[in-house]
């Protein structure tokens, strides 16, 4: 062969170099996840050496008390739990109901307008929604229900639900639309009404995807910081009353980290809370992904 070869070895080296570089870039995300765990553990875990389990599980969160600082995490866990549960309850009917409506009943034109409008929320910064909660949602609820304070668990939950609905709606609607048309048509051909066909055939078939949508929505709610901090009133108490002021884990970190001594006990406990929060959201997201995979798998067969 008399043809010119293009410097084979050198070119192969360059190809390998580019591939290696891109592999490094692709590894960054995983590396950052590991680093996040490492740094949160490095800064947070030493708190466990200085606080007993009883102290951490006490019902008092008073980290800045001069006389007897107390680092009981229960009120914060309860606060996050209450707000998350409330927000999920509020978001569920809107998110899933809206998804069913858009996927099964809405006209195409209707859907083309409603969906992007609702998804617009994802582009509104949470601090703006928190501000809106303070000036509009809180006072409205206070007047409507005759409450003592406008900043409470319910106000926070309403704002959070508002943020979670587009997440739930979009993913659930995708799952519903992924159900083969033939299923629905078969039900209709057997004399089912559109309503019956939706609820007896389409929704059950899309259930894993809807479950994933709800889990992802919950994951978003647990981790949300600014809107909660601005709207819930931040009282570190344990309560099941939605009209009381509560304090979540995220709000505690955001509100207090600015005033702590680096390396001090309070600082370490805040990192410990971050580690706890990270673990909880990872578990929730892992569950969501299981369901996503289940629904994708079901779709493929």
């Amino acid at each position: 062969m008399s043809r010119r070869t293009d410097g084979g070895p050198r070119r192969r080296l360059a190809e390998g170099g580019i591939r290696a570089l891109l592999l490094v870039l692709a590894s960054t995300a995983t590396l950052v996840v590991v680093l996040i765990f490492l740094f949160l553990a490095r800064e947070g875990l030493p708190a466990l050496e200085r606080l007993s389990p009883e102290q951490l599980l006490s019902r008092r969160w008073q980290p800045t008390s001069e006389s007897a600082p107390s680092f009981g995490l229960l009120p914060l866990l309860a606060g996050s739990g209450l707000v998350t549960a409330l927000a999920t309850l509020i978001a569920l009917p809107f998110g899933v109901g809206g998804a069913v409506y858009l996927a099964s009943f809405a006209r195409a034109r209707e859907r083309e307008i409603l969906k992007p409008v609702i998804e617009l929320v994802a582009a509104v910064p949470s601090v703006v929604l928190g501000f809106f909660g303070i000036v509009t949602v809180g006072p409205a609820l206070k007047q409507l229900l005759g409450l003592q304070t406008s900043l409470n668990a319910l106000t926070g939950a309403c704002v959070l639900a508002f943020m979670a609905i587009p997440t739930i709606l979009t993913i659930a609607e995708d799952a519903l639309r992924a159900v083969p048309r033939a299923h629905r048509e078969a039900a209709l051909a057997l004399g089912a009404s559109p309503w019956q066909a939706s609820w007896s055939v389409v929704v059950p078939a899309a259930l894993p995807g809807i479950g994933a949508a709800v889990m992802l929505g919950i994951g978003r709610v647990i981790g949300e910081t600014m809107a909660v901090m601005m709207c819930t009133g931040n009282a570190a108490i344990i309560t099941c009353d939605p009209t009381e002021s509560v304090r979540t884990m995220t709000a505690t970190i955001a509100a207090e980290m600015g005033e702590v001594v680096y390396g001090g006990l309070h600082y370490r406990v805040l990192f410990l809370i971050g580690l706890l929060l990270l673990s909880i959201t990872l578990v929730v997201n892992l569950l969501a992904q299981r369901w996503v995979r289940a629904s994708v798998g079901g779709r493929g067969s």
Partner: protein
Amino acid sequence: MTHRPWERAGTWLLRALTYAMAAGVVYVLGEIVVRGLPVIDLEFLTAAPREGGLAGGIFPAIVGTLWLVVGTALVSLPLGMGAAIYFSEYARDSRWSRWLRTGVITLAGIPSIVFGLFGLGLFVIFLGFGASVLAGSLTLAFMILPVIIVASEEALRTVPQAYREASLALGATRWQTIRHAVLPYALPGMLTGSILGIGRAAGETAPILFTVAAFYLPDLPSSVFDQVMALPYHLFILATQHPDPAARPMQYGTALVLVALVLGVNAVAIVARARFRRRYRS
């Protein structure tokens, strides 16, 4: 076909829920626009805040946010687009690449406040950057990295496999194929998709709380090691420090500028992407 009354009622309920949500969105944005617009004038956009933010403007916060956006883009775009190229063009379905993908998905699910803690621990304290544009941009960049990877991968997937095959069959190497037969057609989509992620970074507060944001700093930054004011943090301060109605105009004005910035960036990206897709199809 029999439509039982309660079925019709049920459909109406679903319709009402959907429209209520859409109406809520329109109301929120409408309020911000209607109440914020009268506040916005030249002084508001070009002056520093006075009297604890109750007078003057928000110029340093706008500039600070722009610094952060540029810094975030400079870090996250090469990282994210490079990673997307790897996942789309090189990665095979191996255990190793599945791990890396899991890393991306996991990163996407981490709460923004945790990124704030991470940025504080790694960049501000451990690496000694202090609270600075550098620390804040890096923190934001890692937070939106998954968005950029996913958006870029999607854009790469829209390039027909036939282009890759044609190029490879002509004796082009993997990288030559990517460089000449894939990237030219994917790049606009990769960029616009990534801009959506960067727009999100502009509106984030929690990750910059401890890594860069300054409460009040009328001076503009001169290097990446300076602290800056930022729009979202400024709105947070205004909203929580001044509960009195007298502060409302400044709050709405700041909210409007922030929303306009984020939505404006998104709108440009979405329009550009739609145009790009249409041209591409024909």
